[in-house]
């Protein structure tokens, strides 16, 4: 089962990485695509906060490039 999942996730990853190995200087005025809402690290702060909360209360792992908020006694 895990092989199938990992396999399915590898395809788009490989696609991305083959494209992103090209490292090119980007001028300040050429960042229009990078500034698109859907390109943000967190394009949907409300949804992201909700999901972090759910995952936090169901899984052992937590943490990342955001601060932890206050605690909860959630299930």
């Amino acid at each position, binding site marked *: *089962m*895990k092989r199938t*999942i*990992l396999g*399915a*996730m590898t395809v*788009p*990853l490989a*696609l*991305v990485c083959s*494209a*992103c190995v*090209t*490292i*090119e*200087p*980007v001028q300040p005025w050429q*960042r229009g*695509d*990078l*500034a*698109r*809402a*859907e*390109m*943000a*690290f*967190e*394009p949907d*702060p*409300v*949804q*992201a*906060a*909700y*999901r*972090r*909360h*759910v*995952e*936090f*209360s*169901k*899984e*052992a*792992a*937590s*943490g*990342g*490039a*955001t*601060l*932890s*908020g*206050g*605690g*909860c*006694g*959630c*299930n």
Partner: protein
Amino acid sequence: MKNDERRTRPAAAGPSLSALTAAALALPGLAQAQVETDLLYSRYEEADLPGSREANGQDSERYEIDTYLFRLAAPLGDQAFVANVTYETLSGASPWYVQPRQPGVDDTPVQVMSGASIREQRTDVQLSWALPLAGIDWGVTLGYSTEDDYRATSGGIEFEYTPQGVAHTISGGIGYSYDKIEPERGASSPDVIAEADKDSLSAFAGVSWVLNAKTVLQTAISYGLHDGFLSDPYKRAYVADGPTLVADSRPGEREQFTVSARLRRYLSGIGAALHADYRFYRDDWDIEAHTLELAWHQMLAESWRLTPSLRWYSQSQASFYAPYYQSLRSDGLASSDYRLSPYGAVAVRVDLRKALPGDWEIGGGAEWYEADGSYAIDTVEVENPGLVEFLILNLRLGKRF
């Protein structure tokens, strides 16, 4: 929630500075052009625990949560103010302890659920203020969360800095939370502790790189330190050689580390953005976890955005965890919480959003999540019977001024 399990760890629910900044990174400033308001309603429903996994052989209902999230983000000149308010009502039963199906005859672990369902509420308020100072963007956040038996007060400072003329942004933050629990007595918890507390410290540091005009990458490390009462006062562990049931008991300290990467790639030909996130987690309870998440943000006809995503998670068990114990451990630790057990999980999600005239936005989405031993990286020999499966449906409304 008198009869129910409680959880005593800090929630990663705080608003982040990256959500305040205009966009990805290495882009100008905190300033945002408009006041943004968002309302999200989420319905969370756990699947019934099948009778085959339960000690009494009967299907059992689990948790249901209705959540309302409200977010206001307002520019104040060069500064920004953000408020996040969460209100949720929770009801249902949850795992209490795990025992062998028929001690001495059938060793298969089966779940015993907590008693009758009780309704509870949680309110969480997070206030953030973002401001530029000395060429660096700063964010200050204060938070307060309250439930019938649990209160958390938290605060944190974050920063983002983009040196001029370079293609990377440096970010970091440090946060603190004081949590206090005053468990309530019930049928499943007659001898529960009166009160307990803990301190939590968290910190992260990251660098975001502009790889090319369509690709950005963020790498980060984070650290968490929890000190105090980290057990679950409502849970029990089963010990075959007696005393039969003991209180859930975990170490009084926990150190957590993560290394993570987030990649964003814009595919201009088809008007889509691909997101790939990976996180490696490790703590000093010996748990290691991997999280991989892929999301595809597809713009459709200017005003629609369709986002399917797939998430995979795998964790190993805590050193002191067991579904149940033959005899008490010499260090006295005991926990049968499925969240400390070895398992994997898969989530499939889809979100749809539509921009409307007058700067309105509506949307909705669904998520199905299933935890299972077979999804884990390593072979799970004995699966915890309390692993969860749930469905989330949400609706949202947004307005820009």
